[in-house]
């Protein structure tokens, strides 16, 4: 059984759960977002937008909790075989992932607010509108949301690419985040 907390060697249970749960949600959300935007306006499109918005709100909540947890935890040490610039790149990459995990749902929330379509979380409750409805702002936030999505896809590809690279180099990076 995995320890709850992180150590210098590896991530603990809570961090591992956050990582994989959010990884799945984010990949599904990216695919869903790109797909639903291509649909013609109809009830199906609205339903998918509704789901996307509700899960976006959940992800925003999760990333806040995850970040607070991270602050309270040790970060496992990187292998000593890594070069200085690689360590720097890893830190920037992880920072970018956190920034994007917050910026994606936030820009989506702004976009919904500007469109005058509040975010309802599965009908349980609605998020307050962040800005007054405004057509121009809606277009602006939509563009930001889309650009951030492509940025996130790029950073995720970099993230997975780095894991593969470490694996080839036989550096124990992936193992630190595996649940077993």
């Amino acid at each position, binding site marked *: 059984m995995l320890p709850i907390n992180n150590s210098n060697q590896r991530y603990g249970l809570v961090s591992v759960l956050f990582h994989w749960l959010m990884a799945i949600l984010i990949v599904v959300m990216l695919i869903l977002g790109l797909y639903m935007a291509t649909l013609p306006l109809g009830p199906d499109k609205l339903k998918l937008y509704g789901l996307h918005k509700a899960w976006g709100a959940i992800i925003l909540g999760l990333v806040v909790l995850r970040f607070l947890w991270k602050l309270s935890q040790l970060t496992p040490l990187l292998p000593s075989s890594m070069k200085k610039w690689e360590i720097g790149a890893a830190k920037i990459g992880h920072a970018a992932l956190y920034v994007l995990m917050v910026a994606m749902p936030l820009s989506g929330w702004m976009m919904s607010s500007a469109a*005058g*379509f509040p975010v309802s979380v599965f009908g349980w409750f609605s998020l307050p509108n962040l800005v007054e409805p405004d057509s121009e702002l*809606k277009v602006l936030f939509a563009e930001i949301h889309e650009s951030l999505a492509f940025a996130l896809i790029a950073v995720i590809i970099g993230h997975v690419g780095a894991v593969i690279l470490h694996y080839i180099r036989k550096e124990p990076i992936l193992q630190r985040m595996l649940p077993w």
Partner: protein
Amino acid sequence: MVKQWIALVGIINMMAFPAMARIWVIDKDKSILSFNAIQNDANVSGTFENFDGEINFDPKKLNESYINITVDMVSLTSSYKEMTDTLKKSDWLAVSNFPKAVFESKEVTLVKDKHYSAKGMLTLRDQTLPLTVEFDLDEYADTHASVKGSASLSRTAFGVGQGEWKDTSSVKDKVVVTFIIDATPQAK
């Protein structure tokens, strides 16, 4: 003879000026007509910028009061241009075929205090169906009157939302129309 003349003048007067409640002119700048619907469990709203009507209302002569409101459906606006454009199309309000919506009521009754109800008929798209409007008389003076109220209707009963939009799981059937009407008495 004189008495007969007076009686005759009285009859002519009554025919020319039948006993009527007071006639009010809607102050368009201060009056608002909007709707609220539920899409994906969240509120969406829009307004009709242009509407007018004949309001004949006197709390003391409710039996003679009547309300005819005509809404310019083309004047629909909302926060979201795509939504406005969609609602104007044939699947929804079909404003090019049905540019006007009309509410007519001759049955204005006091519910309690300053709360009234107006039972009448609403013509929306190609359907004419009963609708009850409830309103509060917030102000009633010689120079000015103000009411606010609402009515709840089923969009599908009026054919608002054709084809796949008849499905009420993403856009709910119930639509609430709310209004504030500010009016001044018609000059005599």
